[in-house]
């Protein structure tokens, strides 16, 4: 609490410019000195709110929200094949409105360009949800399409502004696989059903995760894995809606 005292002008005090000014200027404990030394605890709890401070988080400038893929039916899935991911130099393909062909828009966000533990931005919180419809081998008969060894991997990559290359952040790799009980007696109704799993990624990217603390954007990529013994490079992964969000944090890392 601020301790500010105004020494009143007394009846016996000469009432002139000097007696008035002295209340506010030089003497120790004067009003001017006290106001210039207001302590932190003089601020009432809750006094400073959203009208005084801008948010500590910045959503950056999302350039693409993947609206086109926010659907919930099979006919609107986007598909990636093992053959396509093998052909990619990194083994991964960006999520794209046109699927593995890559002729649409990538699932990519623009972020702050520099991360530094000392600020102003020291981290990017990335939240991604990728809804897998199925990963299967379309060249097989319905009862044999789903192998436990077929899977799909998703990870987050950042754009290295120096090289122009997208670089994977391996701690973000998440993957799914699973066989449906298609071969079990009495479960014929299960034949050719889809796995339908969600792949969530929650990660915090800091300066230590990226080269030189510089980045030019964030994107999500996918890789199709397959059972090399029983299945072919025709193995495909179909996705429903995919969402990617990142929040750049003005914060301190401990």
């Amino acid at each position, binding site marked *: 609490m601020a301790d500010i005292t105004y020494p009143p002008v007394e009846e016996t005090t000469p009432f002139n410019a000097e007696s008035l000014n002295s209340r506010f200027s030089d003497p120790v404990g004067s009003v001017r000195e006290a106001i210039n030394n207001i302590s932190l605890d003089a601020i009432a709890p809750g006094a400073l709110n959203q009208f005084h401070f801008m948010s500590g988080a910045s959503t950056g400038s999302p350039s693409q929200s993947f609206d086109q893929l926010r659907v919930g039916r099979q006919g609107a899935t986007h598909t990636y094949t093992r053959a396509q991911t093998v052909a990619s130099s990194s083994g991964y393909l960006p999520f794209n409105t046109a699927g593995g062909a890559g002729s649409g828009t990538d699932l990519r966000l623009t972020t702050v360009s520099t991360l530094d533990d000392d600020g102003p931005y020291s981290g990017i*919180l990335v939240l991604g949800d990728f809804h897998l419809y199925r990963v299967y081998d379309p060249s097989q008969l319905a009862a044999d399409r789903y192998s436990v060894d077929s899977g799909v991997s998703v990870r987050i990559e950042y754009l290295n502004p120096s090289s122009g290359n997208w670089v994977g952040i391996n701690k973000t*790799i*998440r993957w799914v696989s699973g*066989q449906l009980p298609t071969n079990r007696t009495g479960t014929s109704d299960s034949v050719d059903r889809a796995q339908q799993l969600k792949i969530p990624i*929650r990660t915090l990217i800091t300066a230590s995760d990226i080269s030189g603390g510089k980045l030019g954007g964030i994107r999500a990529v996918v890789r199709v894995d397959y059972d090399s013994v029983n299945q072919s490079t025709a193995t495909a992964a179909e996705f429903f809606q995919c969402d990617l969000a990142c929040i750049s944090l003005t914060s301190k890392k401990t």
Partner: protein
Amino acid sequence: MSWRFPKFPTATNSVPDVDETNANFYEVVEEIGGRLNEHNFEAGTFSIYAALDSDAGFVFHAKDMGAGRIVPGPAIGGDDTRIPARSGWRKLEDASISFTSPATLLWINASLQVTQNPTTMPAGTAWANDDAFNYVMVGIEVDGYVIPESVIGGAEPDNDRAYGVIWPTMPLATDIVFPIGPGEHTVSLVVRVGAREGGKGVHVGKCEIICLEMRR
């Protein structure tokens, strides 16, 4: 300012009065000498970049196990964490952090990779499940207490042996916003595996926990 100043303005040709002069200043001094509130600060006065300490808005604590552990493909590391069937809550040390904070709101995000596929488990282990699906539950523990609202997972058993996919490998994620008091806290990602005939447990691979102190 939300009050009139001066309270008794001195008019031309008037005689200044001591009491009125004092009263002109008392109100201001008393207001500042009390507690400054939202009326004392102009909107937009502060730039968070220049006027705030780096720990004034957000402070985050994060831990992950890095790039090791289970990755796609046959090159599976042997240092993954095994959670046996019928387990209680098991804390993942790679996703457990302790820190000291003021009273604040925490936004906790936690994620992990789980596999039940015996073909991806380390050779020589007796952890290979049959084709059953072990249901997995994941939660966030704060200071030894598993927050019920953070718990996800589970399964609805069928009358057949298997329910859901067989030998699934999947990532899971959960989050919660939780108020904490001042002092030292430990926040952990916890996992437990349900009872399932034939099920021997699951393996946990990559995992990460992020605690965001939202101080403003």
